């Protein structure tokens, strides 16, 4: 936990500089509205925000309930990236949550989409090696997993 906090505050400060006034609100919720839930892996904590209930309910009905948590799919699988992302998600979602200024229905940001795509491969590399890339072709493009498997994590 200790280490996490440190990592977090580093990111936090970096953001503070970048976002200035937004910071106040963000940190407020981050602490009091359990934004720090992002630092844990228990999906229940994500559902601390009613806004996440839909995904939480969906997740419990999904094929991945027993095999993948929210963070398995929504945070990178390398340690630094993981907590950086958690901090940033935690910070921003706290911010949005409080200011209520976000697009509904909630959609993945481009960055999280990439993260999620990679997370599929993290677990399913073996299964999808053959199809993943048309090999060494110039400007290689990955197949998008979620184009077809949109609902594996939580039914859509």
């Amino acid at each position: 936990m200790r280490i996490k906090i440190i990592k977090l505050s580093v990111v936090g400060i970096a953001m503070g500089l970048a976002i200035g006034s937004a910071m106040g609100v963000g940190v407020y919720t981050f602490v009091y509205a359990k934004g720090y839930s992002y630092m844990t892996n228990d999906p229940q904590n994500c559902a601390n925000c009613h806004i996440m209930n839909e995904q939480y309910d969906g997740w419990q009905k999904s094929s991945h309930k027993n095999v993948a948590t929210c963070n398995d799919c929504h945070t990178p699988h390398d340690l630094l990236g993981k907590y950086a992302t958690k901090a940033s998600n935690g910070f921003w979602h706290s911010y949005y949550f409080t200011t209520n200024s976000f697009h509904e229905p909630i959609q993945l940001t481009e960055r999280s989409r990439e993260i999620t795509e990679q997370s599929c491969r993290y677990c399913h590399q073996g299964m999808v090696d053959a199809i993943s890339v048309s090999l060494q072709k110039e400007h290689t493009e990955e197949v998008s997993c979620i184009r077809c498997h949109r609902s594996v994590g939580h039914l859509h």
Partner: protein
Amino acid sequence: LTNIMERKNEARNPFFRVVELTDDTTDPEIWGKNFPLQFDGYKKTVDQTRTRFGGSEASHKTPTDADPRSIVAQSRLEEDPRLKTMWDGYAFAVDFREERGHAFMLDDQVFTERQNVVKQPGSCINCHASAYATYKKLGNGDIALGFQELNKLPYFEARKEITHPVACIDCHDSQTMALRITRPAFMTGIKAYKASQGVENYDVNRDATRQEMRSFVCGQCHVEYYFKGADKQLTYPWEKGLKVENILAYYDEVKHKDWTHKQTGAEVLKAQHPEFELFNQGIHSRAGVACADCHMPYKREGAMKISDHHVRSPLLNISQSCQTCHSTSESELKFRAESIQERTFNMRNLAMNALVQLIEDLKVLKEAGATDLELAPARDFQRKAQFYLDFIEAENSMGFHAPAEAVRILGESIDFTRQGQLALRETKSFQTGQLR
């Protein structure tokens, strides 16, 4: 992140080379040594199973020297004799069958009775065989040139130059296995189409996304076409766009006709398998779905998943073809697809009945000595109506690829037909009681 991805890809070596493949390896059996699973699927295209409107039915025939095939697909002409009237005077009125799997493409072309009716050009080969190596040979490495040479040959001369139906090399780069467009006719066609959309000098192998390639490889053959000029150059009429009205406008402009209708004297057109064109007007293509998504769905083979190379009707494989995207039962998906097809089929029949009436009217007045001047307007309506109807009749999904567009086209076909009949009733010959 992209860098991460790229690094991963370099690291990855997803297949073990048992044999070295070169850009001249045509025989799929050899490719199959490196990719046995895909090869197994590829070979399965000999299966014949019928669906409500697709697949194909194996009907037996006694082999002859002229046509050694002991099994063919059912005859569409026997299923619906009105087609003979629509195509009267053209080779299709003699022999037209339900299409079947890729494995048969070469034989079915060689032995169709249409070969006996007219001398066919080498251009036919482009879509019925593994022609890539042949292009290179005839063009000394220049496939565009080789393509032109192949088109110029008489069919049976050209036939000698090739051995396999469509094979791995026609869709894949032998070194990377990446999809690749090998058909010059498509390169030119899609370039002209993109230009009509404001995209200048489009190079498909350079500019297409991977997802687009999953449709384009099919669009090399599953398209409307004609043979341009004396050199019979295979051409896709997409300069003005992919919609039926764009294509007709193109043919009108270049004054192309496929034949002169035997009963009416109208200069008419035959549409052929415009799957790619119709598909492009549908919701699925708007949503970025590709031919391969439905016709070559991923299938699980042990610890791997691969593209099912048993290219066939998705309705024979709904769970893999549809259910990953549509979370509902197989029977429900089958029902949805078939009710779309049912609706298209009914409209097609209305349109065809109407067309047969117009042809009859024209015939009677012509025989009664009506002048070409009198008949001209009605004949042009026949040309229009027939092309619109055939655009859906010849398209092989019975409307599924673009449900509303298919019905729209048939509705307009009916309008053209009826206007043709009305035009006839304005003629002197009609006034003087020739239709009764």
